């Protein structure tokens, strides 16, 4: 049977467990047709149960392999797992090569795992928008743990991971000195650090560099040839979360149980403190802002003649008007004009 086009039919098929209907719903929200809103409206009442985990880190740190290993542990523990693997769209062709499935072949044939590769596609925060919607669909379809994998390069990708309930930042030895980790700007968003490829030379150094950077643990310093331990003050009793640093060899599954344990502890931490509420509010604020931006922008565009944007771009290009003034002029023009199309 070929798939029907109607969103309502797709939703009821997907809720009965039809994998293809679920996959088609994701395409619908990804392509952002007029049906996307309909999907979200219908499914929203069934959401809010999933725990969303963002996994980010530099290329080559082993994110896909870790996600694969984590999904296996979650399956052993009886959870259904949704995976969203995001890779960049080429800014030149608009095409994308999505290769994360290569590392996720262990999960094939398990109906409790759904994997979807997504391209960033670019354009006006579209990625985050689509990811929110795909998460929502998987949540509504009963996937209890949703793992989102993004390359930790670029603001949009970091934003996606940062909007998860639990953020895992993956590091690996041999990818550069510890200054690289600071540059990436992802230290601040991590709830859990994973040093993957921990069987490789330099793993201890990566581990120590992270520890030092985070100012964690008793510090051992070499002072005139003697090792001395500097005791830090006890952490404030505000039950703040201290990001653990965990070592894994994801290809062999080593240490991955501990990562999943840490995610579950963090989930518990969010549930028992105000932090969970706070994050949910940030998530929803971000989502609302984006919807408002999109809606207001398309309203503005509806009120402007199709050529007006090109005219203004020409004026700015020839330096006869600055971009701020140009934007104000466009808004003023839209406000006085009736809807033209």
């Amino acid at each position, binding site marked *: 049977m070929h798939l029907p086009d109607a969103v309502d039919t797709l939703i009821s098929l997907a809720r009965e467990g039809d994998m293809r209907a679920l996959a088609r719903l994701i395409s619908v929200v990804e392509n952002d047709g007029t049906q996307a809103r309909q999907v979200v409206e219908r499914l929203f009442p069934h959401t809010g149960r999933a725990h969303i985990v963002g996994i980010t880190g530099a290329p080559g740190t082993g994110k896909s392999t870790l996600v694969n290993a984590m999904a296996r542990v979650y399956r052993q523990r009886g959870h259904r797992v949704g995976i969203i693997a995001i890779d960049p769209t080429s800014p030149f062709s608009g095409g994308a090569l*999505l290769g994360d499935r290569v590392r996720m072949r262990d999960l094939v044939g398990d109906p409790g795992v759904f994997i979807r590769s997504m*391209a960033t*596609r670019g354009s006006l925060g579209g990625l985050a928008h689509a990811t929110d919607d795909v998460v929502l669909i998987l949540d509504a379809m009963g996937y209890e743990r949703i793992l989102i994998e993004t390359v930790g390069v670029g603001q949009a990708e970091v934003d996606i991971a940062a909007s998860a309930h639990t953020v895992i930042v993956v590091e690996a030895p041999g990818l550069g000195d510890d200054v690289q980790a600071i540059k990436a700007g992802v230290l601040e968003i991590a709830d859990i650090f994973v040093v993957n490829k921990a069987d490789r030379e330099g793993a201890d150094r990566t581990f120590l560099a992270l520890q030092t950077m985070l100012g964690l643990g008793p510090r051992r310093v070499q002072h005139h040839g003697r090792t001395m331990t500097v005791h830090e003050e006890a952490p404030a009793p505000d039950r703040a979360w201290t990001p653990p640093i965990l070592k894994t060899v994801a290809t062999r599954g080593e240490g991955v149980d501990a990562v999943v344990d840490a995610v579950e502890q963090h989930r518990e931490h969010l549930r028992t403190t105000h932090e969970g509420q706070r994050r949910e509010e940030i998530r929803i604020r971000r989502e609302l802002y984006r919807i408002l931006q999109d809606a207001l922008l398309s309203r503005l565009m509806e009120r402007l003649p199709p050529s007006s944007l090109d005219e203004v771009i020409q004026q700015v290009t020839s330096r006869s008007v600055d971009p701020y003034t140009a934007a104000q002029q466009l808004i003023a023009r839209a406000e006085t004009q009736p809807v033209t199309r």
Partner: protein
Amino acid sequence: MANRKIRVLVAKPGLDGHDRGAKVVARALRDAGFEVIYTGIRQTPEAIVEAAAQEDVDVIGLSILSGAHMALVPKIMRLLKERGMDDVLVLVGGIIPDEDVPKLKALGVKGVFGPGTLTQDIIDFICRELGLETMPAMAAAQS
């Protein structure tokens, strides 16, 4: 759907590990503006059809150099049919003897591409079969 992207699964069923051709084609399709899901070598027919279903692809490209195409392709085509996915465009590339081409086409394979094929020919073929006026990368540049 103005932003609809064409999604293509590139997979290597069977046991030969020669994935250079599959990667070249995957990259050429990406540069033509398609979203390419690459699943790697040694895939079972079941794994390929499951990935195609979850990724909701429009096209499946199979690369086979082992000579096992007459065992693998019929199985994939049958699984696709069972799932109601026989509307997906299936292409086969690799080492396929001439006498097997009509047999594959009888199974529902739309195009067979042997050694020496230009990647542009594959791109043009996909565009034609899907009714695209121009390849996606060109359409993106013009909009």
